[in-house]
C-alpha cells in the first residue's frame, strides 16, 4: 500500500514533506522543466522586499569543501513585480507557494506581511529574520530574541495566513530564539538559514566574495542543522521545517526523525535541479520498503 506522505504544516496541507528552500528555487517557474511542481510538498520563493533589490557585486558565489558561500545580497524583484509578474504563474500550480520576505525595519516586515496576506495564491509566509536591523545599528534581527519577537509580533498582526519564521543558526542558543518566535506568534519555525562564512583567494590576497563574507550552505552544514532542529523540536510545540544540506532521502528522513514535520531542499537543487522531486520519491520508496505506513509516525521518532 502506498504510504501516507502528507503532513499538515500549521494549516498548510502538504502532499509530502519536501519543500524547496528560499533563494534556491527562483519563483518556481525556473525549475518547471526539471521538477513537476505538483510532485513536491510546497515551494518557497526567493526572499522578497518592498522595493526591488539589485544585490551585491560579483563574485557572489564560491565553492567550499562540501558546501558553498553565497553573497547574493537578497537580489529580488520586489513585492510589486512579484505580484505583477510571478503570481500569475502560481495560479496554475496546484502546490502551496510560500512567500519568503525580509525588511530593514519592523515596519517594513509588517508592511510586507500585509501585502502578502492579500495574495490568494500565497499559501503561507516565511519571514527571514537573518537581516540587519537598520534602526539598531545593523544588529541582525535573528540573533537577538527581543528584536526577533518584535518582527514576528508585527507580522503576526498583519497576516492571518500561516506564519513561518526562519531562524538564523549564527546564535549561541537557537532554542532561546525559537521560543521567542513561538511566543510572539509564529505558526511554524524553519531552520537553518545559512551560517556566516568566508573564503580567501590566496593568490590575490583578497576575499573571494566581493561582499567579503557570505552565507554557508550545502552538505557541509548538515550536522549543525540537524543538531539545531533536534534541540528546537524538543523545546517548542509548533511544527518545524528542517533545512540544511539535504541532498537525498536519507538526509531528509534524518531531519524528520530529529523532529521536523517538513524539510526544505536548498543547495541540492543547484547540483541536481530535480532534487526535490527525486527526494520525495525516494522517501516514499523508503517508507514502503521499511513498512512505514505514514510519514507522520517518523516525526521526532528518534530514540535517544
Amino acid at each position: 500500500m502506498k504510504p501516507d506522505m502528507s503532513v499538515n504544516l500549521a494549516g498548510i496541507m502538504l502532499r509530502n514533506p519536501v519543500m524547496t528552500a528560499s533563494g534556491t528555487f527562483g519563483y518556481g517557474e525556473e525549475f518547471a522543466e526539471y521538477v513537476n511542481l505538483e510532485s513536491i510538498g510546497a515551494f518557497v520563493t526567493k526572499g522578497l522586499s518592498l522595493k526591488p533589490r539589485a544585490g551585491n557585486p560579483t563574485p557572489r558565489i564560491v565553492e567550499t569543501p562540501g558546501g558553498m558561500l553565497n553573497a547574493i545580497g537578497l537580489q529580488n524583484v520586489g513585492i510589486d513585480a512579484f505580484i505583477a509578474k510571478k503570481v500569475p504563474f502560481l495560479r496554475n500550480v496546484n502546490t502551496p507557494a510560500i512567500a519568503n520576505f525580509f525588511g530593514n525595519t519592523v515596519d517594513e516586515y509588517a508592511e510586507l506581511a500585509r501585502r502578502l496576506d492579500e495574495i490568494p495564491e500565497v499559501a503561507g509566509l516565511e519571514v527571514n529574520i537573518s537581516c540587519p536591523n537598520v534602526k539598531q545599528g545593523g544588529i541582525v534581527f535573528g540573533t537577538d530574541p527581543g528584536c526577533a519577537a518584535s518582527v514576528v509580533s508585527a507580522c503576526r498582526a498583519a497576516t492571518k495566513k500561516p506564519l513561518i519564521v526562519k531562524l538564523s543558526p549564527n546564535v549561541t542558543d537557537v532554542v532561546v530564539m525559537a521560543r521567542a518566535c513561538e511566543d510572539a506568534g509564529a505558526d511554524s519555525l524553519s531552520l537553518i538559514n545559512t551560517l556566516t562564512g568566508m573564503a580567501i583567494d590566496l593568490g590575490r590576497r583578497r576575499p573571494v566574495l566581493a561582499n567579503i563574507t557570505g552565507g554557508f550552505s550545502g552538505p557541509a552544514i548538515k550536522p549543525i542543522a540537524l543538531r539545531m532542529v533536534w534541540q528546537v523540536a524538543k523545546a517548542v510545540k509548533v511544527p518545524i521545517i528542517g533545512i540544511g544540506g539535504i541532498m537525498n532521502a536519507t538526509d531528509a528522513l534524518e531531519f524528520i526523525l530529529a523532529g521536523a514535520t517538513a524539510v526544505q531542499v536548498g543547495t541540492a537543487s543547484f547540483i541536481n535541479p530535480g532534487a526535490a522531486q527525486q527526494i520525495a520519491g525516494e522517501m516514499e520508496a523508503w517508507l514502503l520498503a521499511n513498512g512505514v505506513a505514514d510519514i507522520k509516525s517518523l516525526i521526532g521518532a528518534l530514540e535517544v
Partner: protein
Amino acid sequence: MQFTSMILSNAEVSPGYWRMRMTAPQQFASATPGQFVMVRVSGAIDPLLRRPFGIFDVGVHAPVQSGAVPQPYFEMLYRVVGKGTAMLSALHETDVLDILGPLGTGFNLGSPDEEKLIVGGGVGLAPLYLLARELVKRSPVRLFAGGRTRDDILCITEFERLGVECYTATEDGSLGECGLVTEALLRRLDVLKGRATIYACGPHGMLNAVAATAEARKIPCQVSLEGYMACGVGACLGCVAPGRGHSAETPDFRCVCTEGPVFESNELKWRD
C-alpha cells in the same frame, strides 16, 4: 535537459588543454552556438557544484551497421585549472558524467552579408568553433586566436578545415605574430571599413579591449562571458554581470546563465 553522458574520448590537445567527446540524447542536436553545459564532475560531494563548459561541437556518429541508430555526441574543449577540471582530465572512455544542458542564450548569427570576425583567447575558442561552423555557411569568417604562448593556441586546423581564415598571435611570439591578437583584428577592421560583426570569447581583459574597439568603431559585437555559477538555470543569481547602465545607485545586473552567456557588448558595463 539533464542526461547521463558516456565519454567517447578524452585527449590532451595541447599541454593543459583537453578535448572530450561524449554521448548526447537526440534533442541535444538543437544546441545553438554559444550555449553551454553544466557538468557534474563527481557523484561525491567534492567538488560539490557543477562546472560550466561551452559546447565546442555537436555531431552524430554514423551507424556502423545499416539500420542501427546513430549516436549523437557533443564535445567540450577545456583547460585544467583546478580540482574539477583535473578530475575531468583523469576520466576515460566509457566513464559517465551527469550533464545539464544545453543552457543559456547563444550567439546571434546576424546578417549574412557582413564579414564575421571571431576573436578567441586561449580556451575562449571553446564556444567559437560551433559558431564558426554555422557562420561559414553564410558569410566569410576570419578567426583571430591569441594566447600567451603557442601552447595556448588551440584547434586552428579544425577552424581552417571549415574554410575559416586564421590569424594567430602570442604574447611571447612563439607562434604567429608577437603581441596581442587584437592588433590583427584592428588591421582587418581597417580593411573592412566597419562592415563586420565581431564575436569574442576569452579573458576579461581581451573582451574589454574588443568591446572598446567595437564601441569606438560602431561595429556590432557579441561577447561570451564567464561568471561563477551554482545553478546554470537562473535560480541562484550568482552569475550576474553588470549591465551597461549599472552603478551602485542604479544597479542593473544581467543573468549570465540565462540572458547570456552571450551578450551584445554594448549591453554590458566595461572598465574604462
